[in-house]
């Protein structure tokens, strides 16, 4: 019964992949080895497609993998199975947090956690800069003069007082148009 197998496998991935979307990749590789749903090469192209389409990468990968395994119902089932464990865990954590949010120890813990997470996010942003701007298509290092200038221009523009309230999608669309016009 392929649907039951999909449910069990993706529920497990959702339960054990701590650290977000990219953490699901090794699990999918493992699935490719054990089932004939898709191959390891398929996982690589799934990652490329997931990165270039909107939505969380982990979810995109699950939909894609489920679809390859068992069509549209497979895609839906794999996605829902993937999010079910975190839905349960987060609801429990949120309930606990609701009761303890005013506790001085919890408050103090988050006082220290917030700057740590800011540091972690800054590190991840450095990583994103490195892979999207400083890495050429063949994997070698490149100095992206034009993209860096454009990035700086966008940064300045989105900090202009009057434009601060604009939806981020406006800038993203601007980027897409510039990308096509300048053949980036």
């Amino acid at each position, binding site marked *: 019964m392929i649907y039951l197998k999909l449910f069990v496998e993706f529920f497990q991935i959702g339960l054990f*992949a*701590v*650290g*977000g*979307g990219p953490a699901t990749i090794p699990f999918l590789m493992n699935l490719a080895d054990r089932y004939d749903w898709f191959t390891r090469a398929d996982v690589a192209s799934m990652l490329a*497609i*997931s*990165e*270039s*389409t*909107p*939505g*969380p*990468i*982990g*979810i995109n990968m699950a*939909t894609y993998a489920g679809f390859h395994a068992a069509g549209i119902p497979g*895609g*839906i089932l794999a*996605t829902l199975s*993937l999010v079910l464990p*975190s839905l349960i*865990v*987060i*609801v429990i954590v*949120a309930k606990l*947090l609701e009761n303890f949010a005013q506790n001085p*120890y919890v408050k*103090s*813990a*988050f006082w*220290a*956690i*917030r*700057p*740590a*997470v*800011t*540091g*972690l*996010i*800054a*590190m*991840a*942003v*450095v990583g*994103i*800069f490195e892979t*999207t701007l400083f890495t050429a298509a063949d994997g070698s290092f490149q100095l992206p003069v034009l993209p860096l200038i454009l990035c700086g221009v*966008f940064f300045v523009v989105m900090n202009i007082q009057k434009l601060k*309230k604009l939806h*981020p999608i406006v800038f*993203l669309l601007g*980027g*897409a*148009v*510039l*990308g*096509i016009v300048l053949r*980036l």
Partner: protein
Amino acid sequence: MKMLFDLYCVFFRIGGLTFGGGLTMLPMLKYELSEKKNWVTEDELLDYYAIGQCTPGIIAVNTATFVGFKKKGIPGAIFSTLGMVSPSLIIITLLALFLEKYINAPIVAHALSGIKIVVCALLLNTVITLAKKSFVSPVCVLIGILAFVLSLFTPVPSVLIVIVAGVYGVLKQKFKKEAAK
């Protein structure tokens, strides 16, 4: 009921408009949830993000679940989560059915290169806002720099960094209490 529909729509929009996964969603979450709707503060977003790092699952989905639960309990959590995953389900299924061959077209590649540059600028902006919010004392600045350096130059897992910071916060409060006695 209207609130549940609202939650679904907001997260549908966030899920459908962000490229590149969890982190790149942060500027959008900040805009939609704290600037436009006032549902959560930027501090709370950081807390959810921190918890999302240490709990299983996709961080973006965990954040959606958190916000949904805060606004409308368990039904809110379910609707937000479904809103977040719906665009992916629709887009990826359509892509797999009809469009797989277009993803490599040059015009798509150019547009994506442009989008990536804007994503970088948005992220830079977000990190600066978050730093302003969370670096509230010299010790906090030190914690932030330590976390950044450790995660950039050593293989220490981020979960461990978050936990150590939390333990430090608890101990600090404990000593403060004992000193007050």
